[in-house]
């Protein structure tokens, strides 16, 4: 079965640079979630989109922005990168908005900021 696709899988950036992470949800899933997992930490919710509209927001820095496009893929844009942004970034998708739907996670993008 098709899974959530994330690209790139690994990314190395310098401080103050920008990064764009991409997420392609499971076919026919219209809801996308972004999570950040720091080293040795649990994943933390950043932001979610349903039908191309932002539906919920967590502890996402103002330097980060995200959107969902007409084909339901999503991009997380990160500017003025800081060392503390080094983390594993997960995208998840679900078949519908709502807590009754299971979120399936992608393999993650590992971002290293030097």
């Amino acid at each position, binding site marked *: 079965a098709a899974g959530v696709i994330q690209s790139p899988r690994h990314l190395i950036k310098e401080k103050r640079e920008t990064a764009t992470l991409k997420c392609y949800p499971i076919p026919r899933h219209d809801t996308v979630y972004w*999570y950040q997992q720091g080293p040795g*930490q*649990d*994943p933390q*919710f950043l932001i979610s989109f*349903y039908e191309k509209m932002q539906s919920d927001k967590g502890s996402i820095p103002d330097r980060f922005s995200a959107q969902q496009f007409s084909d339901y893929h999503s991009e997380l844009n990160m500017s003025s990168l800081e060392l503390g942004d080094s983390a594993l970034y*997960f995208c998840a998708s679900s078949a519908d908005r709502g*807590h*009754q739907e299971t979120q399936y*996670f992608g393999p993650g993008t590992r971002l290293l900021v030097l």
Partner: protein
Amino acid sequence: AQKVTQAQTEISVVEKEDVTLDCVYETRDTTYYLFWYKQPPSGELVFLIRRNSFDEQNEISGRYSWNFQKSTSSFNFTITASQVVDSAVYFCARNRDDKIIFGKGTRLHILP
């Protein structure tokens, strides 16, 4: 705070032993969902189970089983006859609105 607590930070067992991972959750909701995810060393998050708050029936899937008890707000996970491939970090989680709130995880080492 409606958090999820996994009191066991790290567990080591010898292969073929049974092991139980504990999970206690807080909630003020009537309807909620609980989850277990596995994170192997490669880093991906693998969905294992979702449990509806109205369904307290225990579930078994192969060597995995889950014990959900609303009376104690617990959702424990047992691996029977553990194998080296079970070595991973296991996260218990619950939903809060549309997002998932994770526990801190339990790192499980299965020793050959």
